[in-house]
């Protein structure tokens, strides 16, 4: 299958559902090393992203992601709004009218680059990047080995989960958790946790 416009809308809608269902877990992770609002903020932002995609029927998967990104920037607040919003807009620009597995891989990579540039974080800083970067690598490897969209998305979601687990021993160097210094060690990063949910949503909606 390809990532068509309807599936793209379904992806963001599913991400909103997963984040809403896990809102209290994300909030608890954020309370441990941040300020305890990540779940509520991202649930609000993704709901706005879904609304933004529904306002004017998107002409392409790329336009759908750009609309979602605008909704996220407009309603999320905090750092996650500009970061995820920029990520989805960049992914949408890269995706355009396309949607085969190679193009989705390029779009996910554009998302990663956009978030890296805006936030200035790199892998190992205990942020979104720690889930997203390995997910992009896994997606592109799977695609290169001939996997279809669903299998590549599954590989990406699994890699994001592993990336999330790998944030536990890290000391945060970006974002609010960095203020804690060594006390940020021993906790999952809430941004990496929400990224894992967003990638799991992609695997869910591409399932045959």
């Amino acid at each position, binding site marked *: 299958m390809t990532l068509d416009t309807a599936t793209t809308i379904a992806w963001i809608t599913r991400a909103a559902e997963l984040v809403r269902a896990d809102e209290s877990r994300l909030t608890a992770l954020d309370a441990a090393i941040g*300020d305890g609002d990540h779940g509520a*903020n991202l649930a609000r932002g993704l709901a706005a992203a879904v609304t933004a995609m529904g306002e004017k029927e998107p002409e392409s998967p790329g336009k759908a992601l750009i609309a979602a990104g605008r909704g996220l920037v407009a*309603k999320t*607040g905090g750092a996650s*709004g500009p970061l995820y919003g920029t990520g989805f807009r960049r992914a949408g620009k890269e995706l355009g009218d396309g949607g085969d597995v190679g193009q989705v891989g390029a779009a996910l990579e554009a998302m990663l680059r956009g978030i890296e540039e805006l936030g200035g974080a790199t892998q190992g800083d205990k942020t979104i990047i720690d889930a997203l970067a390995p997910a992009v690598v896994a997606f592109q490897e799977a695609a290169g080995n001939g996997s279809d969209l669903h299998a590549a998305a599954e590989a990406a979601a699994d890699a994001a989960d592993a990336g999330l687990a790998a944030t536990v021993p890290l000391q945060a160097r970006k*974002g*609010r958790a960095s*203020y804690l*210094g060594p006390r940020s060690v021993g906790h999952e990063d809430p941004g990496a946790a929400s990224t894992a949910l967003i990638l799991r949503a992609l695997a869910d909606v591409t399932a045959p």
Partner: protein
Amino acid sequence: MKKLINSPDAVIPDALRGVAAAHPSLHVDLENRVISRAQRTPGKVGVVSGGGSGHEPLHGGYVGFGMLDAAAPGEVYTSPVPDQILAATQAADAGAGVLHIVKNYTGDVLNFRMAAELAEDEDIQVVSVVTDDDVAVEDSTFTAGRRGVGGTIVAEKVAGAAAEDGADLETVARLATEVNERSRSFAIALHAGTVPAAGKPGFNLAENEVEIGVGIHGEPGRERGEFAPVKELVGYALDAIHADRPISGDVLVIMNGQGGTPLIELYGAFAEAVDWLDGHGATVARNLVGNYITSLDQAGFSITVTSLTDELVRYWDAPVSTPALRWGV
């Protein structure tokens, strides 16, 4: 959790309605969530700030003659969004450009940066000054950088006074930068505040514990320390500030409650601060004692020390008329 609210979602709209009702000299845009002066002064540099809510009177309480032109309050402890900051910038624009005073948090910096780009698309010149006066965070490549805290109030007052005086955007920005460079803050909490949507305190402390180097969002500090008499706690905070930027000469001191500290205790803390500063050859030339940058109902104090110059004193003393600061008018 017992809070004087209708529901967690209604906290900010309800508060904004109250601000509008209490202060006719302010215009409250309930839709965009912007607090601005009811009237603007043509040709004056606009001064805008904003950030998460829960720090009142910061920033909305500092909108008015001699200080801010507009403020954008976000959700509790969450930065405002770009469109909202743009609306505040438009409300403050009187043709001479707008200064954004931004506390150094990743979310605030990113959202203000996006808003500044949107404003420039509309031919409003924007200069941003980021405040980062909290010495509790090590300034290094290993963190998001120091947090903007109490020094922000001084920057807003001085920049606002200079703008009122007819200074141009470059000068107003230079003064805000200078205040930030000359200001240092440190905070210690006795118990954490409770975010209405979370329903429980941001961290829990035992009877004999304090949170040292705490931020303004209930984020835990860098370490737990042992509870001690106020003289020792204030001395600890001032030692940390002094180690970072030696204190001498005339200083402005803000002895700030965090929202849940009785004023009688804050005055006791201020007395200890004056004694400590006397002992180190510094003179408290100006001061504020009270709740000026809060963390909901968090208990404890923060102390901000700004090393003064004649110019800064002049702008600090200039008339101001806002809900939270009012003198000389």
